[in-house]
């Protein structure tokens, strides 16, 4: 098998696996890591994750498809999620969805032809006091009305928000660096066999 993770991400993946008493527990974190690298979860990544977790690619696929955030098909560079649940519904979230669909020229669940944007209807994102609530790649953004939504899309298209909105970046910016199993500071040095 050829390695799919970059050398740096492979090291990170192994560190993630080592955090858990059973390697299978690292499955979801590793899927996030693969998405941070590739933007989605491709077959090659799932093969390598299976190897790292001591399971089969089919198990990885079967598990990943249970979770809304894990994309086993390509998505846009920016996944825009608009919450339409109760508090956001009461604040006009469906009107915002309609506007977003017109602005981007795609329906919810679809990706623009240039691969820049995927639009998603989300469940409650726990940002209900600023309804309607919008996230891009799981970062909260202020885009609750048509004008600010358009401004956001313009900014994103010009690549001006890369710092703030990394690519599917749930695990990409900060990693656990201290007290890792095997290190001096770890309380689990002897615990793992």
């Amino acid at each position, binding site marked *: 098998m050829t390695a799919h993770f970059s050398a740096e991400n492979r090291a990170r993946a192994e560190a993630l696996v080592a955090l858990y008493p059973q390697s299978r527990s690292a*499955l979801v974190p590793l899927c996030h890591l693969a998405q941070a690298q590739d933007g989605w979860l491709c077959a090659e990544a799932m093969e390598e994750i299976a190897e790292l977790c001591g399971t089969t690619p089919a198990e990885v696929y079967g598990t990943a498809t249970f979770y809304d955030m894990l994309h086993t098909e390509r998505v846009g560079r920016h996944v825009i999620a608009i919450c339409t649940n109760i508090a956001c519904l009461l604040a006009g979230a469906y009107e915002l969805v309609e506007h977003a669909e017109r602005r981007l020229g795609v329906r919810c669940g679809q990706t623009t032809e240039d691969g820049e944007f995927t639009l998603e209807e989300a469940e409650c994102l726990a940002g209900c006091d600023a309804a309607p609530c919008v996230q891009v790649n799981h970062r909260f953004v202020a885009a609750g009305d048509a004008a600010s939504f358009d401004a956001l899309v313009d900014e994103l298209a010009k690549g001006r928000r890369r710092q703030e909105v990394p690519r599917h970046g749930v695990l990409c910016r900060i990693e656990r660096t201290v007290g890792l199993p095997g290190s001096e500071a770890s309380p689990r040095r002897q615990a793992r066999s």
Partner: protein
Amino acid sequence: MLTSAPRIVTSRLDHEDSYTLERYLATGGYKALHKALRMKPEAVAAEVNRANLLGRGGAGFPAGRKWSMLRAAETTYLVVNGDESEPATFKDHLLIERDPHQIIEGAAIAAYAVGARLAFIFCRGEFALGLERLTAACNEAYEHGALGGRIFGSTFSLDIVVHPGAGAYICGEETALLESLEGKRGFPRIKPPNFPAAIGLYGEPTVVNNVETISALPWIIQNGGDAFAALGAGTSTGTRLFALSGRVARPGWYELEMSKTTFRDLIFDPALGGGIADGGELKAFIPGGVSAPWLGPDSLEIGLDQEAVGRAGSMLGSGSVVVLDQTSCAVRAAWRITRFFWRESCGQCTPCREGGHWLEKILRRIEEGDGRFSDLDLLMDVCDNLAPGVSWPPEQTTICVLGSSIPSSVASALRMFREEFATHIRTEECPFAGAPHEMAGGR
């Protein structure tokens, strides 16, 4: 009544940098852990028992009692539930992003009390910033000596792993959460026998506590269980963090003394909710997350008290209150809540999987003007299949209580606003302004 109760879990949130170790230490952080480590583990648990701290995740089970139910074993795990996805609930999100050290300190205190040497903080995957803050705080805590081997020079060692979820409401249910933490699909386990206290993570006894429950522990250890129990009344002790949203002038979070503060205070006090948005009129409110039955304006005098809300036929649940006003369509609200449960059902149980789908379809057609009068009985019939008798608390026919929670909003809307359903059916349209002509489609 607004009381002078201290803010317990939100005490440092007025600081911009509340999430840093520096601010945490400057505001008394990690003193409680120092203190706890000088006590016997049983004494720490006794203090939490005296506080009568009720779990803040939804079920309201006393934390001290939960700890005492652990099966004795070589290995015990602690899992902090930060999956917060109950619609309109945003308190744990706040605590995770703004005070991660408080969660780490609380987790260390709990782990010490129950003898866990490895703890997990399960953080909802959509909280990307929250995950960063928790991870950074863990790094800082290790460097400070508050985590790792021989914490603060004691004999107690603890490792904490911050674990990301990946978008599934059901993983907030504690046994589904453990499955997810084991790297599997989030299917709730059958209880009995799989009570986490007996058979939890990797088959070992496990304590699962909510982020807010854990966040209250440093204060309780510092100030004593009696000081916590002196706040509130009856079994509803201490303060609680409420998330207020919907058609209210000042949506937001408010930490309030339990029991003594009422729903009227929360929604109408100028320092809190500030009344209905745009000077409107209160139509109904959902008192504890969308799993809870709705209450009407005649219930405003009820205190924010677990037992009192229970007696009124609902629950304080996850501590989130949603306000509906005269411009809010009851059918559309019930439809959207039902759509949520249908989408998030894990599909293991037939009543939940099929019943949720039926209810969603029927409510949608009523909202879109295609309903029939026979639909009203049909709705109640499906509800009865999900939770026989459609009473409160609901009868359970399913593996977890997601299924039996689905009827709450449907039955409430029908009981309180039957006329509104009839209008939709008679006039073949939604009588409220701004009805989207096309509500978003399938999954």
